[in-house]
């Protein structure tokens, strides 16, 4: 393939000024792999309240928070202390962040520093005029409900402060590794995921691509009201590499086994291949993704990295609304079907899924039935993109896979075919 630099649409000639901040213990640990193998040049800044941990971090610039309030001993898990400590260091942070174009914040939520300080750092970075993306890990379930509640609160604050927040739930990440992984390895692996995510987006923004993605395009995916973003990456090589990589993505634990995709509102698909990347492959990938998630805001990025060799890497960033909100930006609302009232179950023809050609539709509901059905909790696992407010709060019936509970799931197009068809398709039985 002929790759001339003139054809690419590199954003600025002077290059992006990228700053990467690790906030708290997890964030600082994630800096190490990034410094070793980042896709470009960036300034690395470690921010922590714990002086001991900070001294171990290899970052060239270190900001010790709350020397006075915490005496360098950390926050003992209190986000409030983290926030106060970060606010105390604001002048220093502002000075460090001045003039940057893109700021990545890597942190682990649930503790004191990451949860409390990172929103403050994010706000300072935005003040400095930078495009701010935060990568955060959410705590393991075994770390306790308190930590997880604390992480959720921190996430909301961070979402308000940063341009985009991409979450890596440790619980889901755990499924990427097998049972024999030791705890140390697991925490290291999660930190590596954090670093991978940052590196992925960084590469996307910093390297001129065949199909370039700039900050504003990325923003259109990440910055959606109440949106929570996930990212996942998969690589494959060989004759079927695009199909294989996609199959892996559609079953990726970080995307809840593909479920996240079916509910996604906006999607960034970024392909990295060696010089042998063909247009047909790009086409195939986009075609599959389009079919999987029709009606989403879809952004494509593609770049060629000679270091990839025969492999094809696909990174997905998917954002979806975590709350039932009617106030989606107007432009998006127009592109999407009108609000659902829950009656689609009863009129299969109106759902986004094509109605069964063969199974006769159940009888038309009477108005009383309709009201009753709307009020009753739905047993069906809805695959539609918009959940109405009632549906989100409804207790979900646990659908059992019966005899296939322990067998390898049969996945096709991101659906687990082991679940009963009539449940997945919402076929009314009576």
């Amino acid at each position, binding site marked *: 393939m002929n790759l001339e630099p003139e054809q690419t649409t590199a954003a600025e000639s002077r290059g992006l000024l990228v700053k990467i901040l690790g906030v708290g213990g997890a964030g600082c640990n994630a800096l190490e792999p990034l410094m070793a193998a980042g896709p470009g040049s960036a300034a690395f800044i470690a921010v922590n309240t714990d002086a001991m941990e900070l001294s171990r971090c290899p970052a060239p610039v270190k900001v010790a928070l709350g020397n006075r309030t915490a005496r360098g001993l950390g926050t003992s898990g209190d986000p409030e202390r983290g926030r106060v400590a970060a606010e105390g260091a604001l002048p220093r942070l502002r000075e460090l962040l001045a003039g940057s174009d893109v700021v990545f914040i890597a942190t682990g939520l649930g503790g004191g520093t990451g949860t409390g300080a990172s929103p403050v750092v994010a706000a300072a970075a935005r003040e400095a005029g930078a495009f701010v993306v935060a990568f955060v890990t959410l705590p393991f379930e075994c770390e306790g409900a308190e930590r997880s509640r604390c992480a959720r609160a921190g996430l909301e604050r961070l979402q308000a402060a940063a341009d985009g927040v991409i979450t890596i739930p440790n619980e889901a990440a755990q499924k990427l590794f097998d049972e024999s992984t030791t705890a140390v390895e697991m925490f290291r692996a999660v930190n590596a995921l954090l670093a991978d995510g940052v590196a992925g987006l960084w590469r996307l923004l910093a390297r001129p691509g065949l199909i370039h993605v700039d900050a504003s395009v990325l923003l259109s995916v990440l910055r959606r009201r109440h949106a929570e973003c996930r990212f996942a990456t998969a690589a494959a090589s060989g004759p079927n590499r695009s199909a294989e990589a996609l199959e892996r993505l559609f079953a990726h634990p970080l995307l809840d086994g593909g479920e996240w995709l079916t509910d996604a509102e906006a999607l960034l698909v970024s392909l990295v291949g060696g010089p042998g990347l063909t247009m047909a492959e790009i086409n195939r990938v986009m075609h599959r993704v389009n079919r999987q998630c029709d009606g989403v805001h879809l952004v494509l990025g593609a770049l060629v990295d000679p270091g990839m060799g025969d492999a094809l890497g696909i990174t997905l960033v998917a954002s979806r609304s975590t709350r039932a909100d009617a106030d989606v930006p107007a432009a998006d609302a127009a592109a999407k079907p009108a609000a659902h009232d829950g009656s689609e179950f009863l009129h299969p023809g109106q759902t986004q899924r094509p109605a069964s050609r063969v199974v006769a539709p159940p009888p038309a509901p009477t108005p009383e039935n309709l009201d009753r059905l709307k009020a009753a909790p739905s047993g069906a696992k809805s695959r539609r993109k918009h959940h109405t407010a009632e549906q989100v709060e409804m207790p979900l019936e646990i659908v059992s896979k019966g005899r296939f509970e322990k067998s390898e799931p049969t996945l*096709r197009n991101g659906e687990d075919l082991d679940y009963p068809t009539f449940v997945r398709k919402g076929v009314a039985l009576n």
Partner: protein
Amino acid sequence: MFDASPQLLVGLEVGTSKVCAVVGELKEDHQVNIIGVGQHRSRGVRKGEIIDAQAATDDIREALADAEEQADVEIREVVLGVTGGHLRGYNRHGQHPIVSDDRCITEEDVQDVIKNAKATGLPAEHCVLHIIRQHFAVDGQPGITNPVGMAGAMLEVDVHIIQGHYNRLQSPVRVVQGMQLEVQGAPVFTGLASALAALDAEQKDIGALVVDLGAGTTEYVVYAQGVVKHTGVLAVGGDHVTNDIAYGLKVPQGRAEALKVEHGAALVDASARGRNVTLATESGHASKTVNLDPLQRIMASRLEETLQLIADELDRERLLDGLGAGVVLVGGGARVPRIHELAERVFQLPVLPAHRFTVNAETTLLESPEFATAIGLVKYGAMQAQREDSGGWFRRVIGNRFGALLNR
């Protein structure tokens, strides 16, 4: 091979619901005569793959003993069928320049061009199960079935490759070998075997789809212009239907199975609405009344989805238009009432009943669609033996690389 007694061929299918062994004799004129059948309930297999080697061993032993008794022979070697959701089929193209002075294409050139078609990367833990030749082209002239002896500068070939996970393909082989039995050649993809049993040469020529609706998996094979065009496995089968019924009607699996067999249908009967069946009290289960309409609706949803997934895939590959002979359904699922009607609607093609298979047999048992795979395995073995006899003829038709599995 040259002794007076005819060569024995035993097809062994270790299926999800049953283990099935069919014994055939290969006669001098290359006709296959089926002389015995053995079967036994299978307990060690899920979704077409062995999950309990001990249980599978016991079931295989029972089935083989049954077949030995019926055919009055001793079985030492079997043609083994394998399947599983990890198998993938795809088409490849290979090129090879003819460099010899006289530009005459030799058997070695043919081997090389196929090697070239196969060469493109394989995931680390996978191996090639079958390489099936489709067509050759010499200097751009397509549609050549046998290029040996022709002159040309460039030889091209289209092949269909079936690959799978190495260890998972090996596990049934290990089980059979553990019973002091030989596996003849390499294991054979069961979908291919079913297609061999169900289609005659004319159907293969004008194009046909064979769908093997098994208990654990559904295999599908497309033949057109006399060659394999597409193969695939969906790890969804009759067990899923049973499981859906058990979940939807809140009955235990055993009862769901009975309901499926006795009252099931692939389409919702208008007359089923409001009709009930009562399950008698059994040990441990109280009697229960079940409405037929939801039962058939659950079954219809699953079966339609399964067939639709296949139809969608073939549509993507643009194969649906080339199926002049329509669709043939085999496997236990072909017994579900009105499944042919459903398949006709989904594929928009004529659906033929699994008629008598293309072998000679004395027993009528063999006309049931469940035996397609095992009979096909016998046929496959016969073709392989014929290939050995007539020096590579067979390779041109269906080039299973002998022992490809073992010398990866």
